């Protein structure tokens, strides 16, 4: 094991050199948390300067490895290995999963079950995966996407589910929860 200034990008992120993109994304998120200023595991070790240098290295690692072309070049030039990921195929650009918040395509007034579902499908996250990660019953997740008023739990619980669901598809949790609950109230008042 080497200190961070000597680690390669994979060692920095604690992943294998053949790690898939999802694993890299998770590892980067975990590393950012582990080396944040107030993180339990590291606050007593790094001083602010070192921490900043480490976080910058981590960001650099993520920027390089999350870009298929840059990653291939890094693997070959720096590590001297043939990339296990392979260069991106011509024409078929799967596009990286948006990890950061990108709410622009979903206005606050338009938070509906179907809008959320299309967002989820666009980034290719299966509902099962969200259910597994959030421990929310898949039935509730389906009810959310189907705007199934009767099946949905009480608002107090629903808000919690919505925030977790929003995080899972890279949206701002509060905007989604507020928007969806407003949408639900409009639905209900329309039926009365």
């Amino acid at each position: 094991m080497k200190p961070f200034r000597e680690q390669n990008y994979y060692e920095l992120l604690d992943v294998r050199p053949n790690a898939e993109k999802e694993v890299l994304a998770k590892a980067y998120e975990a590393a950012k948390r582990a080396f944040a200023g107030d993180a339990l595991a590291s606050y007593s070790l790094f001083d602010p300067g070192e921490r900043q240098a480490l976080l910058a290295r981590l960001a650099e690692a993520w920027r390089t490895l999350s870009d298929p072309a840059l990653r291939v070049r890094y693997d070959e030039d720096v590590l001297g290995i043939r990339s296990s990921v392979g260069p991106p195929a011509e024409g078929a650009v799967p596009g990286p999963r948006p990890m950061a918040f990108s709410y622009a395509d979903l206005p606050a007034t338009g938070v509906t079950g179907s809008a959320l579902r299309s967002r989820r499908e666009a980034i290719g996250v299966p509902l099962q995966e969200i259910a597994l990660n959030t421990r929310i019953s898949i039935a509730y997740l389906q009810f959310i996407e189907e705007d199934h008023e009767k099946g949905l739990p009480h608002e107090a619980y629903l808000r919690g589910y919505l925030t977790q669901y929003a995080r899972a598809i890279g949206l701002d949790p509060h905007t989604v929860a507020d928007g969806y609950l407003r949408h639900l109230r409009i639905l209900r008042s329309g039926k009365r």
Partner: protein
Amino acid sequence: MLGLGEQGRLVQKEIWAVGGGKGGTGKTYLSASLAIGLAKLGKRVIAIDADLGCANLHTALGADPPAATLSDFIKGRMKTLSEVLGETSFPTLRLISGAHDFLEIANPKHTEKMRLIRQIQDLDVEYIILDLGAGTAFNSLDFFLAADRGILTVIPEPTSIENVYRFIKSAFYRRFKRAVRHPDMKALVSCAMDQKNERGIRTPHDLMACVEAIDSEVGGRLRKTMAEFSPKLVVNQVRSQDDAALGLSMRSSCSKYFGIHVEYLGFVEYDDCVWRAMKRKRPPVMEYPDAVSSRGTGTVLANLLKGEQIAFDLCVRG
């Protein structure tokens, strides 16, 4: 480690030490659970209470305070360690209890301690579990370094984590100091142990670089020796996924900051069963073998036996 048994045959023997710096992080609990777990697998085990000042491993094992203790050995009333062996309710698990009486036993002389460590290494048994005391006193460090595997327990609290880092660093420096012969190098280690030293050595890695700059041959040899220094980590009293992931973050931090390779063996969930069993002076792994805590220590034991750790790519998400 290979040693000679009583009948002169070769026995495969492993010494596991459980330490961790802060008190109350579950060192004795884990020692007892590992010892019982091994005994249940039919292994011949001796559990040794190396917490010389505050011995209570016998209670954690559900055994009565034994007649003979380590103090009888240290003070020379008994010539060999086998004379102070006590029985437990498990046929293949025996116990050497810590001292109960003299205050000065908590701080044995160096020669007394080395005699003890030598005899521990000569015991005819398959596994030896050493339950260490809290703190980074030389006693704990020396027992930790004498073991084939050094295990550290940590709980998800700042004080415990700080102490574990301090323990890792102290153990590294002590081992380093023993590995070098030249007085100048020993002086360098003493200098490095002072956090505000003039040479700007702040981490074990800085020290290594400093040695290599002075003498590249010695440095290279040392780097090989020290690469074998690989403490194992167990996170105890885990209440959330973030707590469980702490072991991964600490492993990563140790590598990035110290340049020390730490292995994350596993975690034990916070469990009232432990407290309930302890109150009755019964080992939790016996009272509640199916409790989450017992499953946790079971995983730790399995990983120790297999020489594995928690998966490289595992990312527990909170």
